[in-house]
């Protein structure tokens, strides 16, 4: 498969992406799960599943509820821990020929720092996405992403030990995402990614019960796209580091909308569950859009709204 990536190249920190399409953490496994569907090296990058210091079992079942144009999840950062990642998963995936980024999560600043340090040693991992915005764990996660002081603190500490590209994933569950974004930028982040899921809940009226074991969970899918676009548009005007946009992207048209409000690159999440080839189709669709609109380079339309 040959994709013409001319005009699609973009840089996020020190990472050079052949095209601006990445897959979002927790929706693309470790990339391997999609190899039956298409050659994943055609993507700009893959953000692999959240990794914490210790193994986490995650939340009890049920962890998912479908809602109009969206879904709620309450997975709760289930993963096998950074040690297992470094010793086993990394060996399996390190030769995938695209940018591999690890989503780093934790409950304490020390945990974020330690995991980032371990990932820093992995040659073929070009960056981390610091997840300070997971709504599904009791401690940590979103706590760091909803308080500018905490956000500053954790990013600063991780910056001290993490030498490659540091992307910080922001939560929309705040009064001012711009304020958080600025403090993250001031603390030395190379880029931002936004948005993580919106805190929500779903109720079964007949059974008179919440649909998730944790009652609340993170809303994703097309339903959140307007919120994501708004967050990005507001933030783009106020920071100078690149932003990776995400939130409900299911088509190239959606991806273009994010670029128009300032995204340097985009991540595809929930849509991977529905159409496993979607990320590749978005790359091709962006190219078609450019040809049709006589755009030579995506920078011509980035942030023009």
């Amino acid at each position, binding site marked *: 498969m040959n994709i013409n990536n001319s005009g699609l190249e973009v840089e996020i920190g020190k990472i050079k992406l052949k095209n601006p399409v990445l897959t979002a953490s927790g929706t*693309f*496994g470790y990339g391997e799960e999609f190899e039956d569907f298409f050659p994943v090296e055609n993507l700009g990058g893959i953000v692999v599943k959240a990794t914490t210091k210790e193994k986490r*079992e*995650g939340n*009890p079942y*049920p962890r998912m509820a*479908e809602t109009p144009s969206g879904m709620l999840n309450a997975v709760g950062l*289930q993963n096998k821990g950074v040690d297992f990642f470094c010793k086993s998963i990394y060996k399996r995936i390190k030769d995938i020929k695209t940018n591999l980024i690890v989503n780093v999560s934790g409950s304490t600043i020390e945990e974020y720092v330690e995991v980032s340090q371990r990932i820093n040693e992995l040659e073929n991992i070009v960056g981390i996405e610091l997840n300070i915005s997971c709504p599904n764990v009791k401690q940590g996660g979103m706590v760091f992403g909803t308080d500018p002081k905490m956000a500053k603190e954790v990013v600063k500490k991780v910056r001290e030990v993490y030498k490659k590209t540091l992307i910080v994933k922001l939560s929309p569950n705040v009064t001012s995402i711009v304020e958080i974004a600025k403090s993250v930028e001031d603390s030395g982040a190379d880029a931002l990614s936004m948005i993580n899921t919106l805190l929500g809940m779903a109720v079964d009226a007949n059974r008179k019960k919440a649909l998730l074991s944790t009652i609340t969970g993170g809303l994703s*899918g097309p339903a959140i796209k307007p919120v994501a676009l708004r967050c990005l548009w507001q933030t783009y005007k106020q920071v100078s580091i690149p932003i990776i946009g995400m939130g409900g992207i299911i088509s190239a048209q959606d991806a273009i909308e994010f670029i128009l409000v300032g995204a340097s690159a985009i991540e595809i999440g929930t849509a991977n*569950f529905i159409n496993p080839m979607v990320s590749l189709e978005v790359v091709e669709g962006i190219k078609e859009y450019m040809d049709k609109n006589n755009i030579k380079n995506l920078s011509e339309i980035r942030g023009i709204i």
Partner: protein
Amino acid sequence: MKYCKDFIVVGKEMIRSDLFILKLQYQEEVLPEIKPGQFVEILIKDKKDVLLRRPISIHDVSKENNQISLVIQIVGKGTEELSKIEMGNSLNLIFPLGNGFSLIGNKVLLIGGGVGAAPLLYLARCLKEKGTAFNTLIGSRDTIQLFNKDKFSDLGPLHIATENGSCGFKGLVTEHPIMEEDFDAVYCCGPTIMMQKVASIMEKRNIPCFVSLEHKMACGFGVCLCCVVDTDTGNKRTCINGPVFLSSELKNF
């Protein structure tokens, strides 16, 4: 290997108002190898309040005709939408998914409850091909619940238990005399409570009991981590570690 491909609806049979069977014609040359107990994820097109695919177990496979069939019960918006599909329409499927039943032993028992009997037809077909002796026991509330009875009995001995006694033995599958016989393995699919009862009986007799679980899932191929089940070795994914599990490894069995 899993695929994401279109099928054409070449058969649609309403069994009752909320249950129907679809026969789907594969559009590519040859169907890939499908194991009994595996499932498909069906795309529901252009329906804003149905975002995710729907996981449906594979009822039967016809290698000669390049077809698969699915038994679908209308339980919500997604399956309701699927029930409106017409002959000649196409359906996009991700398949085959899941581990499927592992075929062990020389004499086995298949136990299905209600619509849960669906994947047992193809299992029976595969067991027959392999030369394994098997009995099939299907339980349902009443006669109306039963489907493809003749197809099951064409493949091997079929026993029926209905709660109201309108067909076969009157009572629950767990009370049926065939349960007393000795088997090398039991394969079970149906309501959780039924599978739990069957599993506890078989575990006491040291007969391996394989159960096929139905859990809500977003993707069906191992990445969303929504369909987990609690096992002796921690959370496992129903979609790729299952849907078939040995009952003894499940925490609530």
